């Protein structure tokens, strides 16, 4: 709101009433520690409640309408499908849509487990019980990270844990792990045309996983693959490929005895 006005003021900067334009740049260049004491651009909702006044656990057990999610997700797929060069490109776009979500969910997940361990709805995580029941740890090794994704993250997203967690059996690829979902919720209402049978829209979820891994400091590439079985025609395998640096650190940490 302030910017266009500011720009228009600058355009007739030689005019008589240019006291404000001379002040504005000063304010914008002020160091962060002193800026925003007075907040001219701040707009508060009519009920005076900002996002900081809302409790993060308020929507903890609230569920989203599946129909509205399906509608939104189909729009996201359609949006991503515009001007793509192929299936891989489309999956990459879906992945990129999920990635920032993963970064955010990670913080929320930990916050909720801290606050949840004190099992009280009192404001902030200040209760003393968080010292007695130890707060959750950041995952330092690959396995705790995978358990975090397989369990808590999946429960946060889909209200159930993932169906399987496997390590690649091939000795050439020790950095590959697989998380299986027998019936991914995101694909429930997606019907893939025959000529695009490679496409799996759960690439979005793969992006979320990638965001979580990266946020924790585990550089990884995650992709979603169709692996239908007789019982589960929509079975999807998320393939996690951790980077070189992660595997090197893994060796060092193992020697140091870090769990």
């Amino acid at each position, binding site marked *: 709101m302030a910017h266009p006005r500011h720009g228009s003021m600058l355009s007739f900067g030689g005019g008589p009433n240019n006291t404000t334009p001379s002040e504005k740049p000063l304010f914008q260049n002020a160091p962060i520690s002193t800026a925003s004491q007075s907040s001219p651009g701040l707009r508060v909702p009519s009920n005076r409640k900002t996002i900081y006044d809302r409790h993060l656990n308020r929507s903890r057990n609230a569920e989203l309408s599946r129909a509205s999610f399906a509608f939104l997700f189909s729009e996201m797929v359609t949006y991503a499908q515009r001007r793509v060069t192929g299936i891989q490109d489309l999956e990459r776009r879906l992945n990129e849509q999920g990635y920032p979500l993963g970064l955010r969910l990670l913080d929320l997940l930990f916050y909720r487990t801290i*606050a949840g361990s004190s099992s009280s709805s009192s404001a902030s995580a200040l209760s003393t019980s968080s010292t007695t029941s130890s707060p959750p740890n950041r995952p330092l090794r690959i396995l705790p990270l995978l358990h975090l994704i397989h369990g808590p993250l999946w429960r946060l997203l889909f209200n159930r844990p993932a169906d399987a967690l496997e390590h690649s059996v091939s000795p050439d690829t020790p950095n590959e792990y697989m998380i299986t979902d027998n019936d991914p919720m995101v694909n429930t209402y997606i019907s893939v045309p025959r000529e695009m049978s490679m496409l799996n829209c759960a690439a979005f979820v793969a992006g979320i996983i990638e965001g979580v891994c990266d946020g924790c400091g585990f550089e990884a590439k995650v992709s979603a693959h169709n692996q239908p079985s007789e019982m589960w025609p929509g079975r999807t395998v998320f393939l996690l490929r951790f980077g070189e640096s992660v595997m090197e650190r893994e060796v060092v940490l193992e020697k140091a005895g870090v769990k």
Partner: protein
Amino acid sequence: MSYYFTILSPTDAPLFNIAFGTSKSGGDGIARFRFPDTAQYMNQFIIHSSLDIVEEAQWMNGNLYLKHIDTYPPAQAYISAFLTPSGARFLLLHQPPQLPSTSSSGGNTGSSSLLGSSFSASALGGGSSGRASSSSIAANPTAPQTEEAVRQFMNEVYENYVKTVMSPFYRVGLEIKSPVFRARVTAAGKKWL
């Protein structure tokens, strides 16, 4: 006790900075560091130099709150660290007052001489006599009570940080400009430190 709190992104870009003083035991909440006005960058310098230790401790200890991790003896600056799961670092520099009189004298609170007063005091005094004088958390930066207070402070900031991050208008890695967030951090500082 004077505090300098900063939030750094996983790629070490500063997201948020604030300097404040203690509000406990008659403190007026104004930071009085031992550097002259011209050397405020020293705080940032000391904080950023502790990043190496943070990165080392990060993989040895899975806790969010890493406790007191670094000391800079020339300025008696102590640094506590808190890591969010997504890799943002909260660093708090705390510096106990040099003399007992510095914390109680609220006379010269001209906005220009915030740091100058403490500097002159430190130039005169020099001893660490102020550490034993008061019984509050300001007295000893490595005491368990101080650790606990800092932990509470960090947890409260973390809650607000999560709220910031969850905002759809905030992208991870951007500077946090919200005045409400700043007010919340100030309030947390008043409450715990």
